């Protein structure tokens, strides 16, 4: 990497696109000392993921996972979010780019608007909502979706009555409704200049518009919907509130059909690539639909079921067995609407070729991805090359680097992929930027200076209570004055008042002022939910010199006024009860210090394969010393016996460079022929003893233990010389031994995969088979190649190579798991008999070479290493990451990361991306001298404890431990404050800060004293 010689590097980054990939990169970089400018075209960040209802394979709800990240990004001190913004021009080079950004007018002043939504209620102009895919409606003044970040409203200039009236007289109802005076019809756009060190492109993709395929009837027949529309239908906050209904007559559909590969894997008027995610989201949608409504009968029409990811095959098996989803291997030629009923008639060819027409109540088209319409211009603006399909051009060895130095790419703009891979690439780009701008780390970020903390220990409680109107959201239902009067004379309350918008800047200043004037030592604010606003108010009172934990937030909006609209008298009584409970708790609050713990800025990498080496190099470039521990006597790992990538690049060459770079890098120490003997410590402070006797102090650990190939026992492997594995075949092709003309090669897929007890796809074997088949055919067209497959899973942009193999004459024949091919020796050749579903006959093939596509297994050392670091493995023996979708590189306990085959089978480029991601995540930890420990943790009183080990056995984070003196001690750094120890402790030796038993009992007493609400 060419390092810029003299000009100083900028310590800031521009991120184009605020989807989950952009957000992950932004948070990693901002948390490790880099200023982030995020440019987003929509009025809110969130991208495609926020439109989804649930995600596979766990069924977690998308919004619950992404909204904490959006709130964090929205409020982060070092992340500036520019919405309704687009980059117009880029100059400069890596380390120093000058970027012009055009910001469209929003017509709402972000500083004043509190997102209360009163304007939206009054706006008369109804418009079809793009977010709800035109199934629902929004107003001209709108927020993209309820949990939008920033939740400042925006006015759709093309729809607003006033903005379309040249002299701005018409309507103006939103201006009247807005108490904060935030509406500004005269808002002009503006252009801003940013000077950044690096650019990350994560613009995401568009969805294929299925109307181009008229024969499927989207846009003509009402009950044909796109898959993203069906996501909105399933979503509880969607147009139908989560009730699965037909758009035509609102009836509950019984027979629902999904049609796969709409717009993907199809050359005429669609896209040739496979969009990678449709098979899985169709399976998920059919499961979730079935969960919503038992008598839905889902059917998925598909060519090949591409469930190649971790636990994906298990998910599909569950769909079949538990949810009765019917998978029909057939392509649907046409969808007609039955006149009068709105039902849909479909024609397709069954397996044995007979034509079938079948009626369905509803049809969902699984549409794929395609680049934005302005993708070509987008690439020109940033000066990067694209491949022929307008995706950003990258190499499998540098999957997140574009052709222009300093400009990186993450997410589906680099190629169709799933959410975890996008999040991995988000952290990977962060890792790469940290390496590029290492010396500029911390130069542009700001730390907030805070006044000294007032010591309130021992003081009588003087509580200040601020009851908020939240515009009309609370005051329209709860009588604020009644609440103020009811709380005024509560013991410990020194001052009570009300505020219009507690979270607005002016009200915040008023609160700080009052704390000083009234000499308050506790603050209770009665407004909205602590989940989004607690941090904000804690920082406010901290700025007034008060310890931030002397604060409690009474939720009288989401949990009172909003859900008891129209029952004012009852809601007011309940609000009083809620505020009294907060006051009761506040009286017993004590100031809490959040300790910090030092960080040893170095990293241990276990495993010297591609993953380990890539992580080591990236961390070393960031300036951190790295210790690589390799069991064998030389670096390289499994990739040692791989010659070419699918794209034909020389892997051995690349491997040699990587090993060279690792050996020469001054910051990397390599221990070969060595294993980890014993390890101890926690994030920032690990101490590991190696088998060669040396010990290493380090702040983070990356587990890159890798995998091994499955050694087959079936299909005569080992008994006949003509039976080889793909790896052995590749070696012989590379050494020129093969192929000879006239030879016939038969390949069998899924050997040792996708069958109990290994019910998972090893993901690389289809690529290997297609790669070798193409190599054979190109070298000697006379040679014959037949591939016996169950599902060819050449996902994403690899689809081209599957087509190329077919064009070169490779014959693909399907077999079923319960009618596997049978192999017998036949003189100097091998006879393979398999059932051909198309011909409905058994084929008998004499093959010169039988090539087995063998799967992958976790490396045998995975268990031992997992045991030592107390990280769990899934039933297949692979490491279990903290969260399948949003923390695919982390482990539940801090400071531990995973990369490569140890996590799950993956291709070389995906391993490299995950390795870069692990170095990015580790970089976040190691970039801090000190790690703050949250104040809300459990505190342990040793003098009460009799070491009965109950806590030791139930703590999910392993923070209680048996100390040298044989008694239980509590490691506060590992504690997450869940309080399970406090729940079980027979001696009450554990209490969780701010959730102590006496505080909870005080709240219970307060709840009991206030009479229940009366329903009228």
């Amino acid at each position: 990497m060419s390092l810029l010689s003299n000009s100083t590097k900028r310590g800031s980054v521009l991120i184009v696109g605020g989807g989950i990939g952009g957000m992950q990169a932004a948070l990693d970089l901002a948390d490790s000392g880099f200023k982030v400018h995020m440019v987003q075209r929509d009025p809110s960040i969130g991208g495609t993921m926020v439109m989804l209802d649930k995600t596979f394979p766990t069924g977690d709800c998308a919004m619950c996972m992404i909204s904490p990240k959006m709130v964090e990004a929205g409020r982060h001190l070092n992340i500036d979010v520019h919405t309704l913004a687009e980059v117009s021009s880029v100059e400069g080079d890596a380390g120093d780019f000058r970027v012009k950004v055009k910001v469209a007018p929003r017509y709402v002043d972000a500083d004043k608007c509190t997102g209360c939504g009163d304007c939206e209620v009054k706006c008369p102009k109804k418009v079809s909502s793009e977010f709800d895919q035109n199934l629902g409606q929004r107003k001209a003044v709108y927020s993209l979706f309820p949990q939008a970040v920033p939740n400042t409203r925006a006015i759709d200039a093309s729809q607003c009555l006033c903005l379309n009236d040249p002299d701005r007289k018409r309507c103006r109802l939103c201006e009247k409704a807005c108490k904060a005076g935030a509406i500004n019809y005269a808002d002009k756009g503006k252009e801003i200049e940013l000077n950044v060190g690096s650019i990350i492109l994560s613009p995401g993709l568009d969805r294929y518009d299925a109307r181009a395929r008229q024969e499927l009837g989207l846009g003509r027949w009402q009950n044909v919907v796109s898959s993203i529309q069906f996501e909105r239908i399933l979503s509880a906050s969607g147009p139908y509130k989560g009730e699965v209904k037909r758009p035509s007559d609102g009836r509950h559909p019984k027979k629902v059909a999904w049609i796969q590969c709409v717009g993907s894997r199809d050359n005429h008027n669609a896209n040739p690539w496979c969009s990678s995610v449709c098979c899985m989201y169709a399976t998920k949608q059919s499961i979730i639909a079935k969960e919503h409504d038992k008598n839905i009968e889902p059917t998925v029409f598909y060519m090949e079921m591409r469930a190649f990811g971790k636990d994906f095959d298990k998910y599909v098996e569950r769909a079949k067995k538990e949810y009765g989803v019917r998978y029909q291997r057939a392509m649907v030629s046409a969808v007609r609407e039955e006149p009068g009923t709105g039902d849909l008639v479909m024609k397709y060819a069954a397996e044995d070729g007979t034509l079938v027409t079948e009626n369905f109540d509803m049809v969902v088209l699984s549409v794929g991805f395609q680049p934005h319409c302005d993708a070509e211009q987008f690439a020109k603006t940033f000066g990067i090359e694209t491949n022929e399909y307008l995706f950003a051009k990258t190499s499998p060895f540098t999957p997140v680097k574009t052709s222009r130095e300093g400009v990186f790419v993450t997410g589906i703009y680099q190629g169709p992929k799933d959410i975890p891979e996008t999040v991995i690439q988000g952290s990977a780009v962060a890792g790469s930027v940290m390496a590029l701008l290492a010396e500029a780390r911390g130069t542009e970020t700001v730390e907030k200076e805070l006044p000294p903390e007032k010591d309130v220990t021992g003081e009588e409680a003087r509580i200040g209570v601020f009851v908020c109107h939240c515009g009309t959201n609370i005051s329209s239902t709860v009588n604020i004055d009644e609440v103020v009067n009811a709380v005024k004379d509560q013991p410990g309350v020194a001052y009570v008042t009300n505020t219009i918008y507690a979270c607005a800047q002016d009200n915040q200043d008023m609160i700080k002022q009052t704390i000083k004037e009234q000499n308050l030592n506790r603050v209770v604010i009665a407004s909205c939910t602590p989940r989004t606003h607690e941090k904000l108010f804690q920082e406010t009172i901290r700025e007034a010199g008060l310890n931030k934990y002397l604060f409690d937030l009474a939720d009288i909006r989401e949990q009172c006024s909003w859900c008891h609209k129209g029952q004012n008298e009852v809601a007011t009584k309940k609000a009083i009860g809620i505020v009294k409970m907060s006051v009761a708790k506040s009286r017993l609050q004590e100031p809490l210090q959040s300790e910090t713990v030092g960080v040893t800025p170095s990293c241990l990498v276990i495993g010297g394969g591609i993953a380990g080496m890539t992580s080591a190099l990236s961390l070393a470039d960031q300036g951190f010393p790295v210790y690589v521990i390799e069991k064998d006597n030389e670096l390289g790992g499994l990739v040692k016996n791989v010659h070419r990538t699918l794209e034909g690049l020389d892997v051995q060459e690349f491997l040699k460079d990587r090993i060279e770079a690792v050996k020469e890098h001054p910051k990397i120490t390599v221990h070969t022929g060595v294993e980890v003997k014993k390890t101890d410590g926690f994030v920032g402070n690990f101490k590991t003893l190696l088998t060669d006797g040396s010990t290493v102090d380090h702040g983070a650990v990356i587990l890159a233990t890798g995998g091994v190939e499955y050694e087959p026992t079936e299909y005569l492997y080992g008994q006949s010389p003509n039976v080889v594995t793909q790896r052995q075949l590749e070696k012989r092709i590379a050494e020129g031994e093969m192929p000879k003309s006239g030879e016939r090669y038969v390949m069998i897929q899924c050997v040792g995969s996708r069958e109990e007890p290994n019910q998972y796809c090893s993901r690389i074997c289809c690529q290997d088979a297609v790669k070798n088949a193409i190599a054979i055919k190109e070298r000697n067209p006379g040679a014959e190649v037949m591939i016996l497959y169950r599902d060819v899973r050449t996902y994403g942009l690899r689809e081209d190579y599957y087509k190329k193999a077919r064009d070169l004459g490779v014959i693909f024949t399907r077999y079923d798991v319960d009618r596997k091919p049978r192999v017998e020796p036949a003189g100097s050749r091998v006879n393979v008999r398999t059932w051909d579903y198309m011909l409905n006959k058994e084929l008998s093939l004499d093959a010169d070479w039988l090539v087995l596509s063998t799967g992958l297994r976790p490396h045998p050392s995975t268990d031992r290493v997992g045991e030592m670091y107390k990280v769990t493995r899934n039933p297949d023996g692979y490491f279990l990451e903290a969260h399948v979708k949003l923390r695919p590189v982390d482990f539940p306990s801090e400071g531990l990361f995973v990369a490569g085959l140890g996590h799950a089978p993956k291709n070389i480029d995906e391993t490299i991306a995950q390795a870069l991601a692990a170095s990015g995540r580790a970089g976040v930890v190691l970039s801090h001298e000190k790690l703050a420990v949250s104040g809300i943790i459990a505190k342990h009183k040793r003098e009460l404890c009799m070491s009965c080990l109950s806590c030791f056995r139930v703590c999910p984070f392993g923070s209680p431990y048996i100390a040298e003196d044989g008694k239980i001690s509590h490691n506060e750094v590992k504690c997450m404050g869940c309080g399970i120890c406090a729940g079980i402790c027979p001696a009450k030796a554990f209490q969780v800060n701010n959730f102590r038993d006496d505080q909870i009992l005080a709240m219970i007493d307060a709840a009991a004293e206030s009479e229940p609400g009366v329903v009228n």
Partner: protein
Amino acid sequence: MIVGQQKPFDEIWSMVRDFKKVLVYGCNTCVAICHAGGGKEAEILASMLRMKAAQEGVDMQVDSAAIERHCEPEFFEPLDEKVRTYDLVLSPACGVGVNFLADRLAGAIPVYPGINTSFYGGVPEAGFFVELCGGCGNCILHLTGGICPIVRCSKSLMNGPCGGTNNGKCEVSDQTDCAWYLIVERMKKLGTLEKLLEVQPPRDWSTGTHGGPRRVSLEHIRAYEEKEEKNAATEGK
């Protein structure tokens, strides 16, 4: 450790219902570890009794307290007067504690047991207790590879197994391992199986409860008191 289980609440209520002022007096050692009679459980039991009394319309005041251990007199001292103001002490301590406090109060007020004290046991996992020793006063674990046939074999056989084993389990219940099945396996692993071939003679059970209540007096600590006791005993005769 000593393991016990709280008595069913109805049984406790039927014992307590006729009293006006009750103290639930927890012990914070063994019975707390087995979540049966510690300070926390005493508080919970007191709360349940108060509510039961209210439901039955019985006027009863129920308080809870707890001390470190009920088997050492000095721990009782701080609460001695307070305890005497009650007309019943419900002690969820182990049987030792109930006896000890009852002797201390010497009939001033009744002391009722709150738990059923059961056995000396191990705690293989949280909330799971298994009996491993019967306190027979004459240990023979060296003969059986560390597995006690007296307590873990339902028939305390010294020359087992009997005819009642059912694929490794005892005839008494299919959750109970046959001790002798385990002993044979253990002795095989230790390579001393032939030791089991010797017929063990009939045991001397007098060292256990069959020999009457036992006491241990450490001469190097209380030589003087022992002399006193001997003189008192000889004078008495």
